[in-house]
C-alpha cells in the first residue's frame, strides 16, 4: 500500500496518513475524518445546528473565561438538564475550589439567585447539584454567577471531572516542587547571611546574596504561593478570613519587607516567606489526595457496569429496538415487534460486530445504553449482567455479592430477577431486560453515593476555625502598631509600615503550618504500621468526634465465608469414615461450602484421598467414588432426595445455618451445619467502643433472625436486618440529623451509599472497590479490633495537634511584642522559627510510639 498524503481530520484536526472516511455535504462541502468516532461526532454537532463550532479559531483549546460563561448556549446546556417535576436539575463542575469556605461561598451565592430552589456542592468532587425553576432562571445565569465569583463552571460529566482533578493536582505538584527547589537554594544563601551577621560580612557580598535571595524567593511567593494569594483575595472580597489570607499575608509581608530591607541595607526575611509557602503546599497536596479518591469511587462503580451486551434478535424479534413501551409479554410472545420502526442512529453505519447463531437467531453486540426494557440478551459465563433483568432461559449460579454482600454464588432459574453488575458464574443464560442501564441497580447505587457525598455536612477544619479569629486579630494588632509608631513615637510613615509588616510576618509562623500536617503524617504512618490506613488529616479529626458506630454484617463482622459449626453422623457410620469421605469428595469442588468442609476435616486430621467419577451439579451438590468403591453423594437435602436417598432426619430449620448432607452408598451418613464465621476481634471492638461511650448497631441486608443471632453473639443490643442500600443510607442520615457523628463500617457495594454519607467510613482490605474508594479508614488484615485502635489514635492525634497549635501561639505571644518593639532581627527570628518547628515535629513524633491495645 502506497503512502497516502497527509490530511487533516475535519472534526479533531489531527493530521493522519491512513485512508480517510470521506463525506460530501449537500452544499458541496467536502469533509474527511480520521475515524468513525470523529465522523459520528461531526454529524452530531452539525445536526444540532452547531456547525459554526468548526469555524471558531479558538476551538482547539476550549476554555471558559469569566466573561464567556455564556459560551455554553442553551442547546449545549439542555443536554445536561434533567427535569424533576416542575423543577429542573443540573450538575455543574466548578473549577477552582480550594477549601470548604469556597463551597460555603458558592452555596450561599447560588441559593440567592432567584429561581434556584436547592443547591448542594460536593467538596470532594467539586460538583454543584442544583434544582431550579426553568421559568424563572436560565442555566446560563447560574453559570455567570459562578464565573463572576472567580470560579470556572462547566457542565458536569464524569470524565471531565477527573481531568479537572488531574490538572489541579499536577498544578499543585509543580508549584510545590518548584518551591522546594528554590527554597533549598535560598537556605544556602540564608546560612551565609546568618554567618555574616555573627562573623561580619563584606557589604558587597551581603548585598549580592540578598539580590540572589530576592531572585529565588520572588517566584516562590508569586508563582508557588499564587493559590494562597488568589484565595486571600476571594476571602477579602467576601470578608470571610480563612487560612489562605493568613498565609498570603505572612508570605507577602515577609517578601515586601525584605525587598525594602534589601535596598535599605537592612536584614532580610526571605526564608520566612519561602518557608511558609512551601510548608503549606505540602499540607495542600495531602488534602488534595484525600479529595481525589471520592471521585474515583463513583467511577469504579461505572467500571463494574459492562459497556457492551449481547443482544438476541430472533426471527420473531427482527429488530433490536422495537421502540415500544415496556411490554414484556408481547415481546415474549413475539407479537407487535414485527413493525420495522427504525431509530435514528441506525442510519449510521453499524459500529458493532454482528454474529449469527443457529435457528435464525442473531447475536449482536450493542452498547448497554441502547438496551431497552424488554430486549432479550445473552449473558455468557463469566460476564456481568449489563442491566436489571429477568432470566427467561437456562439456569445458572450468580455471584450477587455486589448487591447483597453475600459472597456465595446463588442458583437462579427462569423467572429470577438479577441486578446489573452481578456476575454469571456457571452457565450462559438468556435474560430479558427490565430497566434501561441508567436506571439499573449499579447506576442507582452510583446516584445514591453521589447524593450522599454532596449532602454531607462539612465540618470546618480546626486550622480554619482557628484562623477565623486569628487573622482579624493580627490585622488589628498590626494596624495598632502602625498607628502607635506614627502618632506617638513620631516615626516616618515608611518605618511605621515596616514595623506593622514585621508583626504580620512573625504572626504567621511555620510552626502553625506544620502543627497539623506533622501530627497527621506521624499518625498516618504509625497507624499504617498497625494495619490501619487513614485517608488524610480531616479523617483523623472526624474520627475523633465519633459517637455512633454502625457495622455491616456479612463480610465485616463476619468473614463472609462459611465454617462448620456442627457435625453429626447417621446410619452407624463413625466420624472417621464420614469425614474422610467428605474431605475426599469435597476436595474436588471449588464451592466455599466445600472448602469449609475440607478445612474442617483437615483440622480433625483427615486429608483428601483419590476420588473417581467426580460429578458436580451446580447449586445442588457433588458426587464421586472413593478408592474403596464407596459411592458418595454430598449436597443439599433436595439433591439427596432427587438422587433417591431417603432423608429421614428432622432438624430445627435455622435460617442462619446451611446444611450439607452426605450419603454413602445410598444411605444418609452425615450432616454438616455451616454458618458464616465471626471475624477476629469482632467482640473486642464492640467492648472497646462501648467502653468509649459509643452507641453501636448492626445493620445488614440479611434476614432479621441471622442478624439478631450475630448481634447477640458479639454483644450488640441493636440489630437492624433486611436493609436495602437506600435504607442503610436513610438510617445514617437520620442519625446525622440527630446530631450524632456516625462511623459506618462496611465492605460491599450495598454499603457504599451509607459509607459515603457517614461522618467517617471504614472498610476492610478485602472489600469491594466502591467501598474501599469511599472509605476514610481501611483496616488491613482480619482483625476488626483495629477499628477501636484507629479511634484511639485519632483521639491522641487531636491532643497532639492542639498542643502544637498552642505552642505556635506561645511563639506568637513572645514573637509579636518583640517584633512590635523592633528587637527581633532575622537571625533570632530564624532561630525561633527553627526551634519551634523542631518542637512541633518532635511532639508529633510521640505518636509513633502508639500501641495497638493501649
Amino acid at each position, binding site marked *: 500500500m502506497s503512502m497516502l498524503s497527509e490530511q487533516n481530520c475535519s472534526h479533531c484536526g489531527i493530521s493522519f496518513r491512513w485512508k480517510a472516511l470521506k463525506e460530501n455535504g449537500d452544499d458541496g462541502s467536502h469533509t474527511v475524518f480520521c475515524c468513525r468516532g470523529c465522523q459520528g461526532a461531526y454529524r452530531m454537532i452539525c445536526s444540532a445546528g452547531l456547525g459554526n463550532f468548526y469555524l471558531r479559531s479558538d476551538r482547539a483549546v476550549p476554555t471558559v473565561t469569566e466573561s464567556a460563561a455564556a459560551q455554553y448556549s442553551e442547546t449545549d446546556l439542555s443536554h445536561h438538564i434533567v427535569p424533576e417535576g416542575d423543577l429542573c436539575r443540573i450538575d455543574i463542575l466548578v473549577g477552582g475550589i480550594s477549601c470548604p469556605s469556597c463551597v460555603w461561598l458558592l452555596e450561599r451565592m447560588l441559593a440567592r439567585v432567584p429561581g434556584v430552589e436547592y443547591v448542594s456542592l460536593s467538596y470532594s468532587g467539586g460538583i454543584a447539584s442544583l434544582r431550579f425553576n426553568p421559568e424563572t432562571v436560565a442555566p446560563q445565569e447560574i453559570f455567570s454567577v459562578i464565573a463572576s465569583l472567580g470560579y470556572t463552571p462547566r457542565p458536569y460529566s464524569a470524565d471531565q471531572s477527573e481531568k479537572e482533578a488531574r490538572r489541579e493536582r*499536577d498544578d499543585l505538584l509543580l508549584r510545590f516542587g518548584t518551591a522546594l527547589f528554590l527554597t533549598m537554594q535560598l537556605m544556602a544563601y540564608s546560612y551565609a547571611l546568618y554567618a555574616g551577621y555573627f562573623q561580619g560580612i563584606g557589604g558587597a557580598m551581603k548585598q549580592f546574596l540578598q539580590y540572589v535571595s530576592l531572585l529565588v524567593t520572588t517566584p516562590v511567593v508569586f508563582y508557588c504561593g499564587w493559590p494562597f494569594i488568589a484565595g486571600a483575595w476571594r476571602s477579602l472580597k467576601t470578608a470571610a478570613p480563612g487560612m489562605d489570607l493568613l498565609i498570603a499575608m505572612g508570605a507577602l509581608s515577609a517578601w515586601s519587607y525584605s525587598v525594602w530591607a534589601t535596598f535599605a541595607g537592612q536584614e532580610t526575611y526571605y526564608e520566612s516567606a519561602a518557608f511558609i509557602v512551601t510548608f503549606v503546599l505540602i499540607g495542600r497536596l495531602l488534602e488534595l489526595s484525600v479529595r481525589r479518591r471520592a471521585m474515583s469511587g463513583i467511577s469504579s462503580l461505572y467500571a463494574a457496569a459492562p459497556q457492551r451486551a449481547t443482544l438476541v434478535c430472533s426471527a420473531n424479534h427482527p429488530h433490536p429496538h422495537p421502540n415500544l413501551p415496556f411490554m414484556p409479554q408481547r415481546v415474549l410472545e413475539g407479537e407487535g415487534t414485527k413493525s420495522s420502526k427504525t431509530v435514528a442512529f441506525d442510519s449510521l453505519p453499524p459500529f458493532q460486530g454482528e454474529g449469527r447463531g443457529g435457528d435464525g437467531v442473531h447475536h449482536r453486540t450493542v452498547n448497554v445504553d441502547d438496551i431497552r426494557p424488554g430486549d432479550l440478551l445473552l449473558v455468557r459465563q463469566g460476564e456481568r449482567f449489563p442491566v436489571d433483568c429477568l432470566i427467561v432461559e437456562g439456569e445458572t449460579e450468580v455471584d450477587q455479592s455486589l448487591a447483597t454482600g453475600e459472597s456465595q454464588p446463588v442458583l437462579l432459574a427462569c423467572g429470577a430477577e438479577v441486578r446489573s453488575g452481578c456476575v454469571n458464574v456457571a452457565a450462559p443464560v438468556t435474560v430479558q431486560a427490565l430497566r434501561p442501564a441508567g436506571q439499573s441497580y449499579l447506576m442507582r447505587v452510583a446516584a445514591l453515593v453521589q447524593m450522599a457525598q454532596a449532602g454531607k455536612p462539612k465540618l470546618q477544619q480546626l486550622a480554619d476555625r482557628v484562623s477565623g479569629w486569628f487573622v482579624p486579630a493580627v490585622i488589628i494588632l498590626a494596624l495598632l502598631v502602625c498607628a502607635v509608631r506614627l502618632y506617638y513615637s513620631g516615626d516616618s510613615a515608611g518605618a511605621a509600615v515596616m514595623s506593622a509588616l514585621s508583626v504580620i510576618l512573625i504572626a504567621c509562623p511555620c510552626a502553625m503550618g506544620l502543627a497539623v500536617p506533622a501530627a497527621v503524617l506521624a499518625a498516618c504512618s504509625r497507624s499504617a504500621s498497625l494495619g490501619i490506613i487513614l485517608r488524610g488529616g480531616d479523617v483523623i479529626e472526624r474520627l475523633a468526634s465519633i459517637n455512633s458506630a454502625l457495622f455491616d454484617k456479612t463480610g465485616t463482622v463476619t468473614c463472609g465465608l462459611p465454617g462448620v459449626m456442627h457435625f453429626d453422623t447417621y446410619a452407624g457410620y463413625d466420624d472417621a469414615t464420614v469425614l474422610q469421605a467428605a474431605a475426599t469428595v469435597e476436595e474436588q469442588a471449588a464451592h466455599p461450602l466445600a472448602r469449609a468442609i475440607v478445612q474442617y476435616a483437615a483440622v480433625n486430621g483427615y486429608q483428601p484421598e483419590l476420588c473417581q467419577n467426580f460429578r458436580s451439579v451446580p447449586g445442588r451438590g457433588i458426587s464421586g467414588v472413593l478408592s474403596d468403591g464407596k459411592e458418595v453423594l454430598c449436597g443439599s437435602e433436595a439433591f439427596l432426595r432427587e438422587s433417591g436417598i431417603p432423608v429421614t432426619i428432622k432438624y430445627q430449620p435455622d435460617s442462619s445455618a446451611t446444611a450439607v448432607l452426605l450419603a454413602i452408598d445410598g444411605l444418609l451418613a452425615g450432616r454438616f451445619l455451616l454458618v458464616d464465621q465471626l471475624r477476629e476481634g469482632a467482640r473486642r471492638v464492640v467492648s472497646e467502643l462501648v467502653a468509649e461511650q459509643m452507641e453501636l448497631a448492626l445493620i445488614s441486608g440479611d434476614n432479621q433472625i441471622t442478624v439478631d443471632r450475630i448481634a447477640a453473639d458479639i454483644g450488640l443490643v441493636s440489630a437492624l436486618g433486611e436493609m436495602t442500600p437506600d435504607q442503610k443510607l436513610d438510617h445514617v442520615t437520620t442519625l446525622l440529623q440527630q446530631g450524632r457523628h456516625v462511623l459506618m463500617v462496611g465492605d460491599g457495594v450495598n454499603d457504599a451509599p451509607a459509607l459515603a454519607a457517614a461522618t467517617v467510613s471504614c472498610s476492610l482490605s478485602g472489600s469491594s472497590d466502591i467501598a474501599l474508594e469511599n472509605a476514610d479508614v481501611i483496616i*488491613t488484615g482480619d482483625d476488626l479490633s483495629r477499628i477501636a485502635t484507629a479511634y484511639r489514635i485519632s483521639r491522641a492525634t487531636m491532643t497532639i495537634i492542639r498542643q502544637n497549635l498552642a505552642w505556635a501561639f506561645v511563639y506568637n505571644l513572645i514573637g509579636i511584642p518583640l517584633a512590635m518593639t523592633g528587637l527581633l532581627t532575622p537571625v533570632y527570628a530564624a532561630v525561633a522559627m527553627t526551634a519551634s518547628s523542631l518542637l512541633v515535629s518532635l511532639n508529633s513524633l510521640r505518636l509513633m510510639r502508639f500501641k495497638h491495645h493501649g
Partner: protein
Amino acid sequence: MDESLIILIVLSLCLGAGCWLIFIWAVKKGEFEDVEKPKHRMLDDD
C-alpha cells in the same frame, strides 16, 4: 574568593534548574499520576 563564591552560586542554581526540569518532565509524563494506587495494590485479592 568572591569570584569563586559567585561561580559556585551560579553553578548551584544551574544544577537546581536541571533537577527542576527533570521534575517538570516527570510530572508531565504522569510519574506522580497515581501515588495512592500502588500502596493499595497489596490489598487486592489477586
